[in-house]
């Protein structure tokens, strides 16, 4: 483009000790451009965003804003230079009111309220941020960034955990921002969104930009190829195999209720079956998984495992029936300061006698097996918190591989994970099913249902809206049921 770039970065690099997070990143954004930043987990996207927003400083390289060299000393400094980020975890202070949160970032209240109402939302400024649901909080964070009318808006996986209607709103907001001649850096793992809204896309791999191209329809294959390099795995390719489902039920759920969130939910999971759960945000799926995992108590209904009625008082009860839970929030599942090995081995100590000795030799063997079968990147193995999001997710699943289970409850296991890792996780789920183990899988990406499930139920307002066989698990049917539309 002949036009002067709004932002141009050259040879940017950053290392944490011996771990190279960003090797050599180059790209530029023109005014009025929506630029997608793509890459597998650990490719360096987050590091790049952190440098651009003043959270950390790069080891070397050049950042030019409107042709002038800049280095941002703090997020505040970046914001004053017209760069406003919205991170995956909303940067709102939980214990203070929205109003005071706005004050903290020098955000104009009226402009914020204007942006909020333009989103079709209403917010009580006196509410504490901790009292607000996560999706709304994310929209508030976006409205706060927009209120500064930034030259460059950086959206880091903002749509990852948004319900479909809000994600669409974000897309149209990006379009409006572009129409005013402002630019957006958009990070998302949903390739459809990228094709829909982005002008160009840059793909990072191992901390280096490997490809930049116009993000037109049909660029999906090119994106995936660039992201994965020589690893020729396509997540868009269905890993679905022949049904080998036994006829006997592993678990039967009868008229399960939980307060106002779940009403009269009934379904069965057969041995070796992967049952998908589709729903928009907040339709009771969180509570359903918690109840099945023994972390919450139902207010009504019955649970049967192998035909026997069971009551779970504690997650350990569920585990003793072979039911393992992989929560959606990786942070609640992991011990961030401990090593991969300890995190993987944690659930193995359940059956141990109080003063029993840990057999480290055997533990190492099992854990090494899990690490290999899951292809966990072990560059930062001494502390799990230093792993990328996708690798952390693999550790949370891998822990159950080392222990064994009969039913795995997977809550949105691929949230914020790159396509390559997603494919590995689907493969893993299929492997479980081939071994005769059952999986209950909730995913916020409807396309995944068809890729990995044998059957799906759709929750709407706490009820089972639809019970779809595999042939009917297309995005259209799932989506209409998830919106409460009764399908024939």
């Amino acid at each position, binding site marked *: 483009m002949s036009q002067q770039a709004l932002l141009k970065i050259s040879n940017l690099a950053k290392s944490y000790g011996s771990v190279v997070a960003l090797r050599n990143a180059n790209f530029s954004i023109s005014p009025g451009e929506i630029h997608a930043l793509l890459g597998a987990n650990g490719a360096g996207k987050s590091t790049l965003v952190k440098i651009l*927003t003043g*959270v950390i400083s790069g080891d070397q390289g050049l950042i030019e804003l409107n042709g002038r060299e800049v280095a941002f000393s*703090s*997020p*505040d400094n970046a*914001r004053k230079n017209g760069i406003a*980020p919205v*991170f995956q*975890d*909303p*940067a*709102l*202070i*939980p*214990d*203070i009111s929205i109003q*005071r*949160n706005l*004050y*903290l*970032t*020098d955000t104009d209240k009226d402009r914020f309220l204007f942006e909020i109402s333009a989103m079709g939302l209403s917010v*009580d400024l*006196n*509410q504490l941020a*901790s*009292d607000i649901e996560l999706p709304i909080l994310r929209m508030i964070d976006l409205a706060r960034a927009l209120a500064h009318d930034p030259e460059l808006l950086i959206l880091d996986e903002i749509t990852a955990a948004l319900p479909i209607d809000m994600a669409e709103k974000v897309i149209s907001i990006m379009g409006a921002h572009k129409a005013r001649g402002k630019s957006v850096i958009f990070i998302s793992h949903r390739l459809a969104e990228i094709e829909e809204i982005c002008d160009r896309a840059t793909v990072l791999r191992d901390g280096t930009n490997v490809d930049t191209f116009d993000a037109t329809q049909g660029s999906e294959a090119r994106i995936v190829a660039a992201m994965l390099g020589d690893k020729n795995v396509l997540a868009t390719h269905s890993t679905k195999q022949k049904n080998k489902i036994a006829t006997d039920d592993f678990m039967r759920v009868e008229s399960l209720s939980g307060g106002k969130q779940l009403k009269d939910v009934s379904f069965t999971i057969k041995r070796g079956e992967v049952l998908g759960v589709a729903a928009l945000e907040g339709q009771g799926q969180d509570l359903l998984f918690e109840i099945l995992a023994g972390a919450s108590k139902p207010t009504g209904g019955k649970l049967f495992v192998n035909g026997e009625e069971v009551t779970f008082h504690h997650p350990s009860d569920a585990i003793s029936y072979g039911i393992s839970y992989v929560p959606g929030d990786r942070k609640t599942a992991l011990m961030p300061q401990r090593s991969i090995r300890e995190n993987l081995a944690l659930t193995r100590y359940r059956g141990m006698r109080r003063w029993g000795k840990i057999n480290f030799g055997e533990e190492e063997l099992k854990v090494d097996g899990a690490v290999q079968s899951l292809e966990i990147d072990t560059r930062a193995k001494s502390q799990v918190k230093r792993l990328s999001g996708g690798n952390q997710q693999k550790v949370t699943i891998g822990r159950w591989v080392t222990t064994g289970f009969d039913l795995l409850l997977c809550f949105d296991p691929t949230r914020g994970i790159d396509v390559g890792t997603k494919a590995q996780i689907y493969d893993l789920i299929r492997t479980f099913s081939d071994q005769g183990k059952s999986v209950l899988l909730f995913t916020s990406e409807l396309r995944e249902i068809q890729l990995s499930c044998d059957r799906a139920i759709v929750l709407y307002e706490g009820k089972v809206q639809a019970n779809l066989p595999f042939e009917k698990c297309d995005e259209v049917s799932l989506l209409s049921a998830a919106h409460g539309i009764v399908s024939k």
Partner: protein
Amino acid sequence: MNLIKIKRQSWNIGIVIIALGLGTWQINRLPVFGSYEVRTILLGILPIALLSMGQAIIIIGGGINLAIGAEAVLINCLAARFMANKSFGVAIVLTLALLFVSVCVGALTGLIISRSKIADIIVTLATSFILIGFAMYIQPSPGGGMNLTLAHLISGKGSAFLPPLIVLILPLLIIWIPLYRSRMGIAMFAIGSNKDAAFLSGVNVDLTRIKLYATGGLFAGISGIVLTAITLSGSPFASISNTATLNSVAGAVLGGVALSGGVGGLTGPALAALILYFIPTILLNYGIDPAYSQIITGALTIVVVLAGGLIRNRGKKK
């Protein structure tokens, strides 16, 4: 909106009810209750109330200062050593100078913590020993004094209970309220609530911490001066500073400050000092060794932390 405000004040209301209950109990046992007794009660709570407020500011900001009692003892010893037999004018100047010293001590503590990245609890435990060491060097044995006019101006005389009441309320008005309404106040809640989010919102985390420790130091300084005015001497004992520190934490927690940071105010801790004062005096009236009062204070602190946690959790779920 009013409902939200009432909900936020519910903790303070609870503290007032407990304090009033204990107060009535105690007052009913006194043969007479007049302004002299009011002054006695105020003098009893003043040093701890001030320390609790200082501790509260630091805890709200996500830290904890185990040297706050030692800061007060150091100022107490400095004041008693240098203010004895001085004219009123000199004493006033010295008071201001000592408050400045206490601010500097607090700021230095904050600086060490934010620069070294060592946990607050370790740094302040270490500085508490250092400060007590200084105090013992300055005033090796209990003694010293203070200009009587100044002492009476601070602690009152006979039945004049207004001076200590003013000393109790004034810091709330001229330090806490402006702080709460300022950008620094929001930054204090922000770093205590979620340090990373605060940083992303543009808060200078290190500088805010230094300022909070400095403000905490100011409260410790006022407490030290008040202690001198009440006792007219300086006592360099570690036991005094340790008890004072623990009481300041108990006062802050009883006063509704969450130990995890980000939640609380200063009115609660100021009122909680009443509870910490009434428990031992009531026990003493019943002829029970006041040492046992520490058991009750400790147990009460645990109960309050538990109850507070339960209330917050319930609030979160719904």
